[in-house]
């Protein structure tokens, strides 16, 4: 989940903080201090997160495009200059553009807005923006809600009392509201000082940047893992009681499925599953070797050398072309698979399915998937030549069952022509002729289109008269029989117009009728 840091660089940020101590700080210094703390945290605990830095006043500027290089971000932060007044609306437009250009409009993002809560005056101020919300024309809409899913964290270098003394707090709350309630306002507690800014950013880190640790289980095999980006709770869109579902910290493999069988399923999100060394294990390994600490390999190297289930699983998934079905919580599943970034690098990935008992129609209910050893015979065949997947739905879809549609004239014309074409090849095409005839008959009866039945009967009678002398005698019999049956059906007489009744070929003494017929 990429992060945009939106840093208020207006003049008001240079306001000094009244301090009893020796050093004098500007609010800006506090903001930089807090962000430094955030960047340091991310560089160590969340290093795969892409972050960009945007500075704004009445204009906005992309200082650092999305990067994982936190040194660059830090550097840009320390070189920030001071500009004029605050104009949040244009800056949010900027954020919207930057994110969409880089990640499209489906990738969820986090926006960290750092401001002193002086939100501008007059035109361009947040107050003005919010007042004119309803008077916007289509192309001048307020940038919130963003087209992409976004969480908005507002870090105020100010305390609540200060914000509430103006309408700043109200305006910021309204901003979160415009973002669909996704986000939070953080304020400083107590005097504005380094300590309180640290505590405020600490809360942000707890809220949005704590790594997600879990244990991946496959029976008794297990591995401690970090799941990145951390899976956010999913709101199950039920009419009654929408409950956010969170991925549980024990990820349990249920079994395995071939890639061809799981077949590019739709997923909510994708995550890296990174095996981690839990400290106690490293300690244990290191315990006996403390004496010659110089020669002791680092914890990381040690961890690299002790077998890890994730690596084994990844290797086998890759070689076998399979995925592991993994349970994320009650009635919530995902899949683990090997994903190659390039030829050399590959990784264990986890994709989350939509919560629910049956995320993929072609697998059926997950709770009904069991071990192959329970089946009377191996559903994959002894030589892996077959597969129990995909599941077949009870009813075929229209495109798989030769339905009759006569909405367009040529649909009807094609069906009549098929009958006539076969009529001319009687008796060889007897079976096809009657098959097409019955298809037309059924549809005509269902649509109440008796006129068509009479029309086709006439056509067949005419064909009968046009038969060449060389024609097989059976042809004439079959044509007049078919014509007569259609006419009877068109009377609506229940004896002849039953939907499930089929016109069958007339039994004649001319042997060989229909023998060479191919469907």
């Amino acid at each position: 989940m990429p992060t945009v840091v939106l840093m208020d660089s207006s003049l008001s940020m240079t306001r000094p903080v009244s301090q009893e101590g020796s050093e004098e700080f500007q609010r800006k210094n506090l903001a930089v201090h807090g962000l430094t703390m955030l960047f340091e945290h991310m560089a160590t605990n969340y290093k795969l997160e892409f972050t960009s830095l945007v500075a704004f006043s009445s204009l906005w500027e992309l200082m650092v495009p999305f990067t994982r290089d936190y040194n660059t971000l830090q550097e840009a932060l320390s070189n920030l200059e001071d500009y004029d007044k605050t104009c949040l609306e244009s800056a949010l437009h900027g954020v919207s553009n930057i994110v969409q250009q880089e990640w499209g409009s489906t990738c969820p993002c986090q926006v960290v807005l750092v401001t002193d809560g002086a939100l501008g005056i007059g035109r361009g101020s947040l107050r003005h923006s919010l007042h004119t919300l309803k008077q916007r024309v289509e192309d001048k809409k307020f940038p919130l809600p963003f087209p992409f899913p976004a969480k908005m964290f507002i870090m105020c270098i100010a305390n609540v009392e200060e914000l509430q003394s103006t309408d700043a707090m109200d305006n910021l709350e309204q901003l979160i509201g415009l973002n669909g309630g996704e986000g939070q306002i953080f304020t400083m507690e107590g005097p504005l000082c380094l300590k309180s800014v640290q505590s405020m950013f600490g809360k942000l880190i707890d809220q949005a940047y704590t790594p997600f640790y879990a244990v991946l289980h496959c029976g008794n095999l297990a591995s401690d893992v970090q799941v990145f980006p951390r899976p956010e709770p999913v709101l199950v869109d039920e009419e009654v009681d929408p409950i956010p579902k969170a991925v549980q910290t024990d990820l349990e493999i249920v079994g395995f499925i071939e890639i061809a069988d799981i077949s590019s399923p739709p997923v909510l999100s994708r995550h890296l599953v990174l095996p981690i060394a839990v400290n106690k294990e490293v300690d244990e390994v290191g315990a006996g070797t403390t004496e010659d600490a110089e020669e002791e390999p680092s914890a990381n190297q040690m961890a690299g050398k002790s077998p890890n289930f994730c690596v084994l699983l990844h290797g086998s998934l890759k070689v076998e072309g399979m995925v592991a079905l993994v349970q994320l919580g009650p009635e919530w599943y995902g899949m683990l698979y090997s994903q190659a970034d390039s030829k050399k690098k590959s990784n264990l990935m986890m994709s989350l399915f939509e919560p629910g008992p049956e995320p993929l129609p072609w697998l059926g209910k997950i709770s009904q998937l069991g071990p192959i050893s329970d089946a009377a015979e191996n559903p994959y065949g002894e030589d892996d030549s077959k597969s129990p997947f995909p599941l077949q739905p009870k009813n075929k879809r229209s495109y798989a069952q030769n339905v009759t549609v006569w909405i367009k004239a040529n649909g009807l014309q094609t069906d009549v022509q098929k009958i006539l074409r076969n009529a001319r090849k009687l008796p060889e095409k007897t079976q096809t002729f009657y098959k097409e005839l019955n298809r037309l008959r059924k549809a005509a009866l269902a649509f109440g289109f008796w006129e068509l039945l009479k029309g086709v009967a006439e056509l067949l009678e005419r064909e009968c008269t046009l038969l060449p002398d060389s024609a097989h005698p059976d042809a004439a019999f079959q044509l007049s029989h078919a014509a007569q049956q259609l006419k009877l059906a068109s009377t609506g007489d229940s004896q002849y117009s039953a939907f499930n009744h089929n016109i069958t070929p007339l039994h004649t003494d001319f042997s060989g009728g229909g023998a060479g017929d191919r469907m």
Partner: protein
Amino acid sequence: IMMFSVSHKTAFVVDHCPYMAESSRQMVECDMLTKSRGQGVIPLAPVSKSLWTCAVECSMEYCRILYDVYPTRKLVHYIVSDSEFHSLNSWRQEDQSTQELMAALASVGPPNPREDPECCSVLHGLVAAVESLCAITQYQHEARRTLMDVADRVANRGRIICLTNAKSDTHVRMLEDCVSETIQEQNKLAAGSDRLMPIQRCELVLVHIYPQGDDTLVSDRSRKELSSVLSSEVHSVRAGRHLASKLNILVQQHFDLASTTITNIPMKSFLCVSVTLKEEQHANTSANYDVELLHHRDAHLEFIKSGDLHMAGSTSRDSGLKETVTLKWCTPRTNNVELHYCTGAYRISPVDVNSRPSSCLTNFLLNGRSVLLEQPRKSGSKVISHMLSSHGGEIFLHVLNSTRSTLEDPPSISEGCGGRVTDYRITDFGEFMRENRLTPFSEGVLDASGRTSSERAKAQLERHTRYWPMIISQTTIFNMQAVVPLANLIVKESLSEEDVLTCQKTVFNLVDMERKNDPLPISTVGSRGKGPKRDEQYRIMWNELETLVKAHVGSSERHQRVLECISACRSKPPEEEERKKRGRKREDKEDKAEKNGKDADEKAWPDSERLKGPQEREKEEQTESEMIKDSPDSPEPLNKKPRLMSEEIQPPQKSKGPVSLLTMWTNRITATSRKHEVFAGRLNSVNNKAELYQHLKEDNGMDLHENGKATR
């Protein structure tokens, strides 16, 4: 997705009164072939559909699309009205198919023009439709049952689509009033009933159908709220083509559908190529066809959100109401199986299901091929945004992620924990995964202990992993072909007498091997010299085998018997007493491990830890001839078959008893392949690198090889 929105229940009311038998005056020429057949043949007069036929076939088309896109949970109740109402199906899921409806329609037949028009009215059907909307569907019933105390929160909404021929706007008002009043009455009734639900919301869609060439007597009217429950809209449409496109637009609106047109389809890719080429020669048309598909509109979400809808090649069509997004066919290069990053999959329905391009496309997909679709962009850059693919006879439009990934350039798995270990049992675990593949079982199948199928799958994984060393050098028994029969059987939940016998035979076979002094594939990684002596090798092997079987003794009495067999048969080391002393601590550990067995994930390997611990063997001298050649000297064991390695080392001449054909053959192969002894350094190497002075630390009284637990 709202569980029970208005689109959960759709009641079709189709007018079956005598006036519907009137001709639509849209003529269809059926006798097309006649033109090419010379003179003297009088072509058949064109036929025309009645208003009824037009109404029925368009409503069937509406249902066809609906059922293609939503096979479940979107229900239709089809009602026909003349002197009374005729219910052609019910809300039941089993009744939801066009074939069922077609059969029912056939039994109704066209309207009887001679019936007394005074007794006939569409009102009978409308009243029946309102009553029907109060009836509970099986889905509502299930929701109410699961919600129990808050059952009243299950919503009841629905839509009535009435296809009729109205006399005037006043007539339309009358129909609306009737529906409104009926809802009030029925809701009162439903309030006092357990088997009915009051209607909370009803959308009435009145479609007035009139013959071509006539002036309409009824005016169009957009949706209007008639009461807090009922809204109504009126569409005045000419029969035939116009009616068809109107209902097509309605089904899209009612069920949140959108349209995608697949363009640039090369007909040569299709199996129907011969027919097509012939037609092409006649028609002299281009080689590429377009096929329009309907699907849930979320498949276009990315376009809509980014405002790219127009850029993505969307064009207004027909009535101007309908838009379609054009995507370009990309000829599939190979049939290889790939896991695409797909963010959504939506069922499709072809707009023109019977047209040749459409059926060629759908048949191509139903035969198992997938097609990637490209989004045309102004810049000319190529972006694959969608994929068409069928699963079990259903075609889905997959949405592929086409933007930059936030997970790009991740650290490789080989850089992380366990990434430096090179002798994982990749092949064995692959085999394990195949054995633990899943298969669907029928609904509600529970075993004796009440477990669902997936719980049984997990239980099997648990059993199969009670003892499962992850790396080749951690195990002896899993590198031995001779152990396979027992290893495969012992993990089973229950054993047959025959299974026990097979296990015992395996044990006897091992005893025999020991008697003949056959070498074992003991890992020499990390140990000094040439590895343990032969009798020590067997001791290690027996210990490991016991560990495996002990992990399963709790399963049944027969499992217990296998363990007893091993204990009785296994070799007793010569200096048993001494070892007992050393082993006491370990034994304790084992017992503990057994007790904790199931939950001790990380602690699950005390025995294997012990087994791999080479320091126990290090003092013992080895002769060159006993060296074992199984050390993994390649860093990539992906394609290695450890089991073959154990076969490799079976000496060809030593076996005296009856020998299996396989053994004879492998012996032979081994004999020819064994040309030279492997250099000791390589044998003991890791990643082809032999560690120098590897015992330096041990000489200091420290040992790194057993998790820092010094054993001396």
